[in-house]
């Protein structure tokens, strides 16, 4: 099926190799890239996930590569374009806006040249000297920048903002909203204030088996989905079979995490539209979920469960019994969601911040944001991982694409999550069986791991290296894709609606900036 689509897009079948049960690797020529991506994504309607630059000089003879990841139901397609050292790179972001951020990031971090007039810094600080190209292999992870040339201190036409943060958002981001009268005409997002180079740390200092714990700390709300995606990427690269018990344990924890994340967001939205009682009720039900996680893994948020090839510890019958009781309690307290959906305050958000289906596809929106606009894509169903093939659930889809449906779709997903958790808790396999499979590292393998995080599709791509280390690790968090729709949803709306529209995208900025603190004493 994939081969047929690729033939229609004029890809030479000799360049296509199957590197996993559902993964295809295509080596493309630089000139062909634009046409192939255009054909696959814009004509055939495949989903564009991400792209990244790789410095291949440690594995092969000195060359660079650009890697694009495109997905369709039941298969992942990795497109690789090999470049010479000083060759100007091809780009597709003028026809496909979804690729804009990742292409600019690849140019910034690797110092790749392009024929487009772009600023030299995108996610790094603009004051850094231009020879700082952190993802090149000759750049050491512990380089002290103060020893290099002194940084530029001022940018000519810059302006200083004293209070960039809106009181609704507690994270490190900057939304510059331009308005004429009562209408937003433009919006600019400035981020990556907290980028500390987790990918570089994972490639240089850490061993493959240590990375899941660091990956879990990328995000404070959806960390487990990151460590699962990382483990899946390595498992697909090294061809490891995960035991059934581990797959069910992962499913259970992933769904508990989705509940936590959605209930927190819905509570905050209720707070922002003025429904204080529902805010408290939702946080109270979230506490039940947190207690269930505490019983199962010994921590409310950081589960520390995943290792490559399986999980670290198994659940006991006693724990499963306690969690079943908590889920029963949760079901009664979730009736408050109906009050949220029916509330007058939320109905006011109908037809506010509309995202049409075509622009959602072009901008690469994922998760509840895309599903509220009518895009029928859910990684759990379309590219099944963990034990999602063996449980029964629905994927709620809505067509309006407005703020109201983005919120309601999360209410529906909460109900589906509870349904999955109940099915998994009734399986006997959760308490008996193997926990993990042994594996042997091999260099130069590519693997993609995808999970449906609470905010959407989460992509980890790894290339394994020597000494059981990673050669390249790319993290594409869902908010990275979803923030591209900001301009589409905000322009034309009233500035007073902006906080709740942005909140309905559920931005998670530490995921987007890939924060982690690993400092030598």
């Amino acid at each position, binding site marked *: 099926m994939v081969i047929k689509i690729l033939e229609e897009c004029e890809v030479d079948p000799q360049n296509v190799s199957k590197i996993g049960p559902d993964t295809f690797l295509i080596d493309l020529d630089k000139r062909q890239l634009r046409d192939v991506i255009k054909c696959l994504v814009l004509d055939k309607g495949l989903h564009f996930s991400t792209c990244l630059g790789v410095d291949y000089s440690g594995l092969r003879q000195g060359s660079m590569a650009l890697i694009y990841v495109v997905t369709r139901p039941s298969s992942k397609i990795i497109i690789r374009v090999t470049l010479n050292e000083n060759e100007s790179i091809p780009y597709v972001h003028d026809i496909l806006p979804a690729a804009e951020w990742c292409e600019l990031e690849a140019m910034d971090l690797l110092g790749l040249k392009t024929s487009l007039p772009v600023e030299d810094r995108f996610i790094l600080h603009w004051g850094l000297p231009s020879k700082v190209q952190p993802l090149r292999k000759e750049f050491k992870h512990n380089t002290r920048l103060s020893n290099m040339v002194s940084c530029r201190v001022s940018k000519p036409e810059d302006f200083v903002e004293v209070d960039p943060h809106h009181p609704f958002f507690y994270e490190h981001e900057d939304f510059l909203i331009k308005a004429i009268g009562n209408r937003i005409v433009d919006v600019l997002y400035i981020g990556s204030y907290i980028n500390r180079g987790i990918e570089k740390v994972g490639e240089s200092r850490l061993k493959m088996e*240590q990375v899941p*714990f660091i990956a879990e700390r990328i995000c404070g709300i959806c960390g487990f989905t990151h460590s699962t995606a990382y483990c899946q990427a390595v498992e697909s690269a090294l061809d490891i079979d995960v035991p059934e018990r581990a797959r069910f344990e992962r499913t259970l924890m992933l769904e508990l995490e989705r509940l936590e994340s959605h209930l927190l967001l819905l509570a905050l939205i209720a707070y922002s539209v003025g429904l204080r009682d529902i805010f408290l009720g939702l946080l109270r039900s979230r506490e039940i979920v947190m207690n269930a996680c*505490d*019983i199962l893994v*010994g*921590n409310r948020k*950081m589960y520390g469960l995943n290792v490559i090839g399986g999980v670290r510890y198994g659940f006991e019958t006693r724990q499963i019994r306690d969690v079943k009781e908590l889920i029963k309690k949760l079901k009664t307290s979730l009736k408050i969601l109906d009050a949220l959906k029916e509330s007058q305050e939320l109905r006011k958000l109908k037809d506010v911040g509309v995202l049409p289906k075509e622009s959602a596809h072009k901008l690469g929106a994922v998760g509840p944001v895309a599903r509220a606009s009518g895009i029928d894509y859910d990684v759990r169903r379309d590219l099944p991982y963990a034990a999602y093939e063996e449980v029964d659930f629905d994927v709620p889809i809505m067509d309006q694409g407005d703020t109201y449906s983005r919120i309601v779709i999360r209410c529906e997903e909460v109900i589906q999550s509870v349904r999955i958790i109940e099915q998994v808790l009734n399986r006997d396999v959760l308490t008996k069986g193997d926990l993990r499979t042994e594996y042997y590292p091999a260099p130069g393998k590519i693997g993609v791991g995808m999970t449906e995080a609470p905010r959407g599709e989460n992509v980890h791509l790894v290339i394994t290296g020597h000494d059981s280390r990673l050669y390249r690790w790319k993290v594409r968090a869902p908010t990275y894709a979803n923030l591209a729709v900001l301009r589409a949803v905000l322009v034309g709306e009233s500035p007073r609606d902006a906080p709740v529209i942005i909140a309905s995208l559920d931005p998670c900025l530490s995921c987007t900036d890939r924060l982690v603190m690993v400092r030598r*004493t």
Partner: protein
Amino acid sequence: MYRQASDGEKNMRGYPRHDPDKCIGCGACSNVCPTDSITVRVSGDRIEWIHNVARCIRCCFCVDHCPTGALSVGEEYSMIADSIDKLYILHTIDVEKCPKCGRTMTYSVNVEKHVASRTEKASMSCERCKIESLLRVVEKVRRV
């Protein structure tokens, strides 16, 4: 100083608890620690096991890798302290002396508890003694 888990939090995965009576100073914990919060080093005739609680992320991966069970999952998890020195846990363990020459070796006295057979006991000597005995064997072979 550190907050103990209350009854309702008995499952809590706190930072690892270290038992100096079982530790052999092999350094497996410091090798696998993702954030480098554990340091094991030999200073003089003692082994220092240092844990920086502020850097620990409570993954307890070290507990999985401890060969003698000296590390276990602790119930203390809060790290509020009034000075930065209290965030470091320092345990010292005596170093085993070489039974032949009496020099200090790189593992602790506790290693004897985990040594079972006579051949293993015989192999417990310092690097220099091992090389010397090997050289003696080589000399004998040469004469023959």
